């Protein structure tokens, strides 16, 4: 945790319903980072966002946003945050335009021009009542509400899950534009790994309430590889290599996913396994699957 951290947690634990959802999570995000939060259903992604926003109280440990405890954020810090929830909190009987008018009154600065432009580009029917909108349209309205005050920290819980491929692509382009603005930090959770791969500069992977990996996406890609090992004879026993995340054996061939990779390790591995190794590039989805294998 550094002074420049916009988000920082230390030993963060959250219990609910007699079960630990977050188990001692240590995380940090600095200004300007676009962090993709990955994890299976029930891994604790939404709970982590809830704690960071102060909606939920930590059971133990510490969660800080802009250097303040998340459960006691000052008004000034809260005004610097935008949030898109997984399940929107819009009112069925009000229109999107009425929601935006209310949201504009909550903030001292509201970028009407930006909202008008995005609403036009995303084809959001602002005149219709929320109760008559589709899930994707509701999600777009919720996103507009979070962007209007140009927040320094934008947290989004599955923001694109209800959007069609065209709308999702538009949304991601906008997200990149927003991220390009100086000092803007974005943390968004998603199941759609390709979205995170396209936009995120950093990745946090949550597995059963614990951080399985965190860091720069490029670093993750460089440090995690798949090796195809071809041996003369069949592999007798499952392989156990340093940094091994996943291994599949098929006769004389083994497919191994390794973390902490460096090119110098290749001859050593070939010697240890008595095989020829071939390096295969991995997508983020492959890495995610390997982490959860």
């Amino acid at each position, binding site marked *: 945790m550094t002074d420049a951290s916009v988000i920082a947690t230390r030993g963060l634990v959250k219990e*609910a319903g007699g079960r630990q959802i977050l188990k001692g999570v240590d995380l940090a995000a600095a200004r300007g980072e676009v962090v993709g939060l990955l994890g299976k259903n029930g891994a604790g992604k939404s*709970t982590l966002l*809830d704690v960071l926003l102060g909606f939920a109280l930590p059971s133990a440990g510490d969660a800080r946003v802009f250097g303040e405890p998340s459960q006691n954020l000052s008004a000034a810090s809260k005004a610097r945050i935008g949030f898109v929830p997984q399940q929107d909190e819009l009112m069925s009987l009000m*229109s999107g335009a009425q929601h935006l008018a209310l949201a504009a009154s*909550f903030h001292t600065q509201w970028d009407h021009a930006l909202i008008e432009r995005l609403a036009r580009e995303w084809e959001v029917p602002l005149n219709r009542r929320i109760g008559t909108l589709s899930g994707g349209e509701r999600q777009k309205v919720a996103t507009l509400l979070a962007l209007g005050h140009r927040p320094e920290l934008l947290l989004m819980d599955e923001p694109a899950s209800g959007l069609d491929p065209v709308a999702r692509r538009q949304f991601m382009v906008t997200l990149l534009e927003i991220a390009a603005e100086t000092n803007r930090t974005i943390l968004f959770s998603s199941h759609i790994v390709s979205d995170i791969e396209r936009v995120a500069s950093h990745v946090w992977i949550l597995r059963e309430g614990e951080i399985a990996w965190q860091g720069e996406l490029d670093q993750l890609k460089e440090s995690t590889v798949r090796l195809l090992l071809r041996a003369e004879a069949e592999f007798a026993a499952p392989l156990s290599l340093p940094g091994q995340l996943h291994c599949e054996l098929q006769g004389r061939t083994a497919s191994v996913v390794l973390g902490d990779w460096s090119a110098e390790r290749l001859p050593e591995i070939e010697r240890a396994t008595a095989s020829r190794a071939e390096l295969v590039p991995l997508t983020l989805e492959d890495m995610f699957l390997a982490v959860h294998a």
Partner: protein
Amino acid sequence: MQLLRVGFWMLPLQRWLTLLGAASLLVGLVFHPPANAPGSTLPPTFLGVGLMVMVPLLAGGVFLRMLSTSRALLLRPHARGRLLAGAVGILLLASSVWIFAYWAAFQQVPAKFRPPLEEYSLMLAMTLSLGTLCAVALFIASRSPMWTLLIILIWQAPGLLLHALGVEDATRLLGGPVSLAMSLLVWLVFGIWYLRARRIHASAWGHRQDSTPAMATTSVSQPATREQAMSRWLLANQSAPQLGLYCLLAALFVLGFQWIFAREVEAQTLHAIMFGTLAIVAVLTGAVGRTMAARSRALWLPAGRTRLQLYGWIERQSLLVALAIGVAVGLAATLVWWLGAPHPAMPLGYLLPALLAPGLCSVWLGLMQQHRRSLLDVLAMIAIAAGIFYGVVRPLFAGSAAARWDVLGAQLVLAALLREMARLRWRSADWRRAQRV
């Protein structure tokens, strides 16, 4: 098992009512008082069974529409037929439970107090017809507000017709075999329609299509201050006086019906019904408090306040709405008082606070619904209902002139306790999931 689950255990409210009802039933049947006090074993028994069968007997129609529009359920073979059979099955089950409890309760009293066998069959017929009426009426009424209005009118029509025809004892005429035959006929007609209908529509409550032309975001009037915006958010663009006016109109509408159709009954009974209705209108403040608690999560960031500061502000807003509803109830009560001849024996100076006290308790009970519900909430709900019964309905029904200041005092103490409980819950409020509002 499926019937039991849907009938008694599907929703959290059902589970609480079933558990409370079972506990009350157990008290009535197992720990019954000596045989020389026959009346004392019956109230807990009937209260228990009443709580258990309340939802399946009275709300089956709403469930049926809800399940009939579930695409996942309709993919199953013979889904409509099974749902219809389930609805009838639950009705039969709930009626049987009711009659069985009635029979069991009277087994503990001396034989001379036990009702004859034909009374059980009459009661079964009437329970089935009431359940049928409620199920079909609520199925239709749950379609949209317009259908609800139509059902209210249809519901009242037979009584009005019989009254116009000079039939004094309509209940006896419609009871017994006649009501049983009518129930069977209603289920037959409804069943044929239900199985043949191409599409069962989902409930359209709150899903009206907007017909306003397209508007830009800047063309919508924007609240001047953050507080105004917060208030409009909590009240879904309504204001406290508007809500009070709606309550007044709704109360006058219901009271008008009651006065038209029940004016022939004894004055005391009519007073108990009308003032009891007003007390129920007053507890709508609970729904307001609960809705505000549900919407509070969205204000956490923009309001820029701590949990307790936010609670304090929302409490003030809900008390403002409670005041508007209280004024509406007070106006309606005064109107009923002056128009009703003879006046209730009880002084208006007591009746007004007695009507408003349950509403005050309900405000804080509503605000307590901050994602953590417990047995305490159910007990508070029962205490509020008991306050209405013992503080308003029973004395009026008995024609008593003595004000029940003790009951009123107890309700004020309850209100203070509920307020503390609400503050306690908000201090550590855990808004872990957004609630649909």
